[in-house]
């Protein structure tokens, strides 16, 4: 069964801390994505990666960076966490092998920055 896992379900950090959110997929998908979800704003794309070591900015990349050293793992990094980065973070993966890029999501990490 297809699976995307995220390192933490809930996370509380302090302003200025460096925060790592990890995402792992076991489907050999080439594409991986990081979104944040906020009430009334839907899902907004932060970064995505279509191959190992490749990354592309999404709609709201400011304040974030990513790393993809292995195909199955995609990390989101908050270099210096701020309160406005309190949000639900969702990781997803997809592949074109089936002819369309259905996205499979992880359970999400609810990050609170104090």
């Amino acid at each position, binding site marked *: 069964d297809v699976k995307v896992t995220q390192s933490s379900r809930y996370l509380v950090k302090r302003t200025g801390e460096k925060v790592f959110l990890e995402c792992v997929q076991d489907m050999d998908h080439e594409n991986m994505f990081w979104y944040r979800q906020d009430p009334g704003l*839907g899902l907004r794309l932060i970064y995505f990666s*279509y191959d190992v070591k490749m990354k592309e900015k999404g709609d709201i990349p400011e304040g974030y960076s990513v790393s993809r050293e292995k195909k199955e793992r995609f990390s989101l990094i908050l270099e210096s966490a701020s309160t406005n980065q309190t949000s639900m973070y969702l990781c997803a993966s997809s592949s074109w092998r089936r002819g369309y890029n259905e996205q499979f999501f992880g359970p999400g990490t609810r990050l609170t920055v104090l």
Partner: protein
Amino acid sequence: GQQVMQIPQYQHVQEGEDFTTYCNSSTTLSNIQWYKQRPGGHPVFLIQLVKSGEVKKQKRLTFQFGEAKKNSSLHITATQTTDVGTYFCVVASNSGYALNFGKGTSLLVTP
């Protein structure tokens, strides 16, 4: 990238009533996907529509893609409490890899 407007933002129905959410774009879409997110859960893929005028059914759910490929709808017949959640229409971004999510329609079904 391609953007979509989704209406209504919220819908509250009695169990057994029908429900429809609409998705509209100002540009022609190559395809459209629909996802459902249960409260406290993550989005789950429902379906993809590709052809002009396409209609697909999944039990009580009917998905339509407009003839001009600029709009789509999701209709649920005889809602059940298990239908509660947010329904998103989703379109491809300029890159083709990423997806742009609409803001979703939150459906509440009361017994």
